[in-house]
């Protein structure tokens, strides 16, 4: 699965990216000027979003919709969170302690049960088998809430988790990928010394200017633009360097790749990047679900709680929506591999910040967690809620050729109780 997703990511990335003469590849860069002030202004005006993507699909019964005493319950025990009526898994104590910041949706009822289709569907809110290439969440937020004058990318993804692609929004909104150790792509490192790179750039500009006098075609301009963006990246990429701050933060976030990525996500949205996706692997626990989830939650709990706490402490949480979700939930039934399989009939997504009401549980599953009992939420409903929280019209119209397309499917409604 992970290899296929990695391949999909690379393919989607390369399809939409400009390749420069020096081999630099730059998707979704903003304008040409490195304008911190502009980024800050945009950050003030528009909301940002961090997506914590639980790759493989986390188990709702083992996290936020526990069923103690039922045959589906499993060995984890609930603990009382900060919010009356909301119990969480004993291995999410730090998240439970800040549950007043969480909106827990316990009634996700979705349509795509497997990984590729689920990843696409839960990134785009449209089914994978449609012919229209819909843009994923990050691309939409990059378009609507990104700053076109910023040097920084408007959509950053860490890790190798799957994606939906920028779709009809075009390559400008493809994600800028960072590997899960925090390493930037190879193309972001110059292979010349600074002074030599500058001389090379000046020579390039001179040649390009002379060439441009007689060659006005768009491809030549695109090439020159991509090249200029690459140079801007070399100047702006210090934003991605968290090495000085991380030693002070790692005890709170957990000294893990996911913890480090969450800390970087906080720094990136504070720098004005409107959308950052952080993936956590390992949730696809068809076998040994409980030890796998226990290990995953011990990584998740400090990272997620520290992220929300830091955003709140810096006054950024109101303007930053943090989403916790994956492509599917997991079955209430425990299979004979001590695992839980994919499940889409009644599962859980958690929102926080960005103006979403905290301390709320929306919807409910039945006693064994097998069906939605109250307030089913579709992919479209969830995305409509997310877009509304971020100040984006969920029915914004786009065109694919001559065909009109909306950001969310017909009938999708935001959950007003959370907004």
């Amino acid at each position, binding site marked *: 699965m*992970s290899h296929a997703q990695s391949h999909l990511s690379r393919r989607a990335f390369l399809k939409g990216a400009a390749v420069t003469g020096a081999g630099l590849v730059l998707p979704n860069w903003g304008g040409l000027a490195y304008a911190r002030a502009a980024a800050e202004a945009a950050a003030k005006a528009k909301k940002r979003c961090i997506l914590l993507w639980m790759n493989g699909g986390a188990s709702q019964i083992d996290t936020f919709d526990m069923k103690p005493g039922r*045959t589906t319950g499993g*060995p984890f*025990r609930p603990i009382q969170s900060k919010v009356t009526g909301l119990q969480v898994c004993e291995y999410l104590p730090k998240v439970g302690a800040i549950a007043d910041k969480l909106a827990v949706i316990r009634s996700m009822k979705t349509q795509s049960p497997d990984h590729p289709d689920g990843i696409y569907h839960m990134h785009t809110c449209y089914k994978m088998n449609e012919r229209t290439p819909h843009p994923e969440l990050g691309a939409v937020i990059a378009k609507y809430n990104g700053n076109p004058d910023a040097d920084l990318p408007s959509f950053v993804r860490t890790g190798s988790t799957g994606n939906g692609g920028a779709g009809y929004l075009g390559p400008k909104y493809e994600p800028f990928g960072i590997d*899960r150790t925090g390493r930037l792509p190879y193309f972001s490192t110059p292979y010349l010394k600074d002074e030599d790179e500058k001389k090379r750039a000046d020579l390039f500009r001179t040649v390009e200017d002379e060439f441009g006098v007689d060659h006005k075609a768009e491809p030549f301009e695109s090439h020159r633009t991509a090249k200029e963006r690459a140079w801007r990246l070399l100047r702006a990429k210090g934003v991605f360097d968290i090495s000085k701050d991380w030693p002070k933060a790692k005890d709170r976030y957990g000294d*893990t*790749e996911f913890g480090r990525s969450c800390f970087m996500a906080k720094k990136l949205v504070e720098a004005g990047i409107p959308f950052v996706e952080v993936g956590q*692997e*390992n949730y696809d626990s068809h*076998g*040994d679900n409980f*030890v*796998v989830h*226990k*290990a*995953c939650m011990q*990584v998740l709990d400090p990272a997620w709680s520290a992220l929300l706490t830091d955003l709140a402490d810096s006054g950024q949480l109101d303007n930053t929506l943090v989403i916790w979700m994956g492509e599917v939930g997991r079955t209430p039934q425990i*299979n*004979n*591999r001590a695992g839980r399989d994919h499940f889409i009939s009644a599962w859980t997504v958690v929102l926080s910040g960005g103006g979403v009401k905290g301390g709320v549980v929306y919807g409910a599953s039945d006693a064994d967690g097998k069906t939605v009992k109250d307030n089913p939420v579709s992919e479209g409903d969830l995305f409509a809620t997310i877009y509304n929280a971020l100040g984006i019209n969920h029915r914004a119209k786009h065109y694919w050729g001559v065909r009109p397309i909306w950001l969310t499917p017909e009938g999708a409604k935001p959950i007003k109780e959370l907004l």
Partner: protein
Amino acid sequence: MPDLTKPASAWNLVWDADWVTAVAWLGASRRVAAGNNLGEIVIWELPDKPGGAAPKPVAQLDAHTNVISRLACTPDGKTLISSSYDHTIRYWDIPATFPEATVPLVLNARAIEDATRRKANGARVPPALETKVCVLKPARTLTQHKEWVISMELSRDGKALITGDDAGRVLIWDASAGTVSKEWKVPKGWVYAVGLSPDKKQACVTERYTLVFDSGRHAAVKLWDASAGTVSRDLSNEKEFKGHHIISASYSPDGKTLALLRGGESGGNSGKPTLVDPATGKVLRECAPGHLDGGTDLASHPDGKHIASTGRDTTARIWDTATGKLVSEVNKPRGGQFKDWFSCAAWSADGAWIACGDQAGAVQVWSFPV
């Protein structure tokens, strides 16, 4: 001595409340205790000879609230010790004669529930297997662990207990006093299996951290000086163990052989017992073929020459430790891509019986001709 080449099924003790996770014989008696995923423990009194209707439980031990990970009994059969995911270790006084059975227990409740749910599709609801049991309460509860107590072993003389948990803590106890005599924490991950040498000088502790894809995954096998709490030999990089989660460790009665079993969802028949010289840490031999999709438990035979292993392939295998060769196999894998596990095994004191806990909700008992 029993002929271990000729296993014969004695009884299938149905108790399908949930998966059976631990099993133990009570001293030299024909009493068998089993625990399950719900934290329930029941005891059967078996006839001296196999055959006839399957016996029903006579006692239920009521206190644990989560998975029973291990059961062990003192050699005199008077004290049963249980470890659990509820973070506790409990001692149970086992009377020579059980009190009057007054509490009803349905042994096939899950089968009835499943069939009832599928009745509309033509499923036939089986008649209830009913019995009555007495209920025992624990004599003592040890609460020093603050995480799932995954592993526990009682020394053969019943005097020392070793336990390990998912916080990485290893505790060695004076079993009769219930006090901790030594404690340490493994440097990384969780404790998975523990074993204590018969002279109580050496402990084998395996470690795990169960992430699948990223660098947080961890596996280790180490021999510890049990009195000093220091590592005496690290076997983690031996090719038989490197990167593998070792689910069970068992010393032979003479302490000259240590058996280790690979667990988890390992590919193919790789759930092999591996035999190690505990004095040198040298791998002596592997027992093949291993269990399909991983092993679950090991039990050293009282004769010191054989071990039994159980696995996710619904089999128990009996091995000659001198040669590593398979002596016999009890049960056959059931159908389907993934089988119901045998999750645990225990030999009777005379070595003529073996009891295996079954994921489907039963304790299967085999006898061997003497």
